[in-house]
């Protein structure tokens, strides 16, 4: 074993490690599903959805360098599209009590996967259109414009009663988002983004982030690239929205106010703007802490006094954390670095490549 490993090119160690990690990951998913109660599994699934959201926001904010705050809107488009397509005609009739549903939608009934994809594509299309309009702007102006668009989408959803059931929302959606769907999508999308970022297009995105004028002068169609990045990001946000809808089984426009965007932005900033690894890790940590810190919202025994429970106190914790990060570690957890087996060897968690053969790899 030892000798055969040392004769292969250095890539093979990484491949073996990656394969091992993938197998361990799959086994863990199995074990978790068997082991944990339903509530824990719900949080575990939410981690996966938040990974997708954070990654998609990181694609525009971190890799293409466009400060966009419209993510909640694209999620909403994906969530509503997917939900309306998967609801059975009977369910629709029960839901639409104030204003009957538009006749052309009443009998549409699709399985989960096509509905999810259509939801994503529709969100991507909206993202593309809004991108063409708003990506002429830069920096803060772009942030304000996208924030505005996101709110416009929400207001439209509230008022298009015959399509979205307005403020009443949609209830009783089938619980399609199983752990396999949530984590399967998250893993696929992570893989997709890693490949995209490593490709020539990823380099083009990063060149726009680093120096727009130089990128344009080097033959990069800056505007086209920005729109492409924006549309892909919206597509992924739409997919996450669809997954979220069938995870919560009930959606209404209020869930998609701009604060939702900031929740995702928090993950991206904590993880590192421009790091896929950072977004994945931060999404998991933040999602779990959001639940773990729930006790802060309830009555607290401080030793000398007992508070009567302050709802929202745990968000104060995240605000404080964000402030600390912005002041002391602006690059976030990972900065722009990515996970690699080599990086692990460098910090001593794995034997170095040269010595890997002696110690028999891992």
């Amino acid at each position, binding site marked *: 074993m030892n000798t055969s490993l040392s004769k292969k090119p250095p890539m093979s160690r990484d491949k073996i490690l990656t394969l091992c990690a993938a197998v361990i990951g799959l086994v863990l998913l199995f074990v978790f599903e068997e082991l944990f109660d339903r509530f824990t599994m719900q949080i575990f699934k939410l981690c996966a959805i938040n990974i997708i959201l954070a990654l998609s926001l990181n694609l525009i904010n971190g890799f293409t360098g466009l400060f966009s705050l419209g993510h909640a809107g694209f999620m909403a488009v994906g969530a509503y599209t997917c939900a309306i397509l998967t609801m059975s005609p009977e369910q629709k009739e029960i839901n639409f009590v104030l204003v009957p549903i538009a006749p052309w939608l009443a009998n549409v009934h699709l399985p989960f996967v096509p509905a999810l994809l259509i939801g994503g594509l529709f969100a991507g299309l909206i993202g593309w259109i809004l991108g063409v309009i708003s990506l002429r702007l830069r920096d803060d102006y772009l942030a304000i414009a996208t924030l505005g668009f996101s709110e416009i989408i929400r207001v439209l959803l509230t008022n298009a009663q015959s399509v979205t059931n307005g403020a009443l929302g949609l209830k009783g959606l089938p619980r399609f988002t199983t752990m396999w769907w949530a984590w399967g999508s998250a893993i696929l999308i992570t893989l*997709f983004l890693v*490949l*995209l970022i490593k*490709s*020539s*297009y990823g*380099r*083009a995105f*990063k*060149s726009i*982030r*680093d*120096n727009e*004028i*130089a*990128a*344009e*002068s*080097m*033959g*990069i*169609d*800056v*505007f086209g690239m920005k729109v*492409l990045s924006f549309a892909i990001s919206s597509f992924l946000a739409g997919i996450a929205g669809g997954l979220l809808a069938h995870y919560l089984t009930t959606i209404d426009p209020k869930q998609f106010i701009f604060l939702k965007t900031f929740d995702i932005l928090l993950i991206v900033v904590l993880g590192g703007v*421009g790091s896929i690894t950072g977004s994945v890790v931060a999404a998991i940590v933040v999602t779990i802490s959001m639940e773990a810190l729930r006790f802060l919202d309830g009555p607290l025994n401080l030793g000398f006094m007992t508070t009567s429970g302050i709802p929202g106190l745990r968000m104060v914790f995240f605000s404080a954390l964000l402030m600390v990060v912005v002041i002391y570690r602006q690059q976030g957890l990972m900065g*722009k670095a990515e996970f690699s087996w080599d990086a692990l060897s460098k910090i001593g968690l794995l034997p170095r490549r040269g010595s890997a053969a002696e110690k028999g790899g891992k």
Partner: protein
Amino acid sequence: MGSLLQTIEVNKKFGGLAAVTTLNMDVQDGEIVGLIGPNGAGKTTSFNLITGVYTPTSGSIQFQGQEIIGMKPHAITRLGVARTFQNIRLFKEMSVLDNILVAQHMRMGTNVLEATLRLPSYIKKERHIHERARALLEEVGLSRHEQDRATSLPYGKQRRLEIARALATEPKLLFLDEPAAGMNPQESVELMDFILKIRDQFNLTIVLIEHHMQVVMGVCKRMYVLDYGVTIAHGTPEEIQNDPKVIEAYLGVG
């Protein structure tokens, strides 16, 4: 030997300020042309007009007989016009190699699906641009720094990287904006040799802005002198050196 680039009566006004007035440049195939003038004379503005960063207020710019006014900078680059910047504009968070690879994206002719799915056709193209990028880095003596962050290089090497990056777009016409800025005399001499070398090796036509007279006079057969946006003289280095208007612009009236 036709003219590669022609600017005809090009004007650029920023509000009330005439940055460039009736610029008439004619650059022949294979030439090295200098563009000189005191600070604020409109040299960089002229570059920006030709490369599409600014749109002229009036006039016509023709590259290989084709009107390029109104075209976006990336489209002009595609035609074969590349440039470097006065204040170096590298992709600062990216490696030296990636800086060169970005410049080849346009010529790869790939699409986002092919690239993301790493189809065999894409891998072939990727391998090809890697080879080319490495050859270019070899050419400018930066092979050792391939994986370094672009902005971690010393100043002179950043300048060379910028030139290599411009060459990676496969230009016919190369604009160099003060390539010798910040270089010591020894480096300037090396730069002159380097400019002549790449001209021959890549069949380039070069237009350069330079304050360093030794460099300009050394490599340029012909030059234009701008002052307050107006072309006050053009001709061979000898003619320019003895032109009273040029002396006046540079040294003031005696």
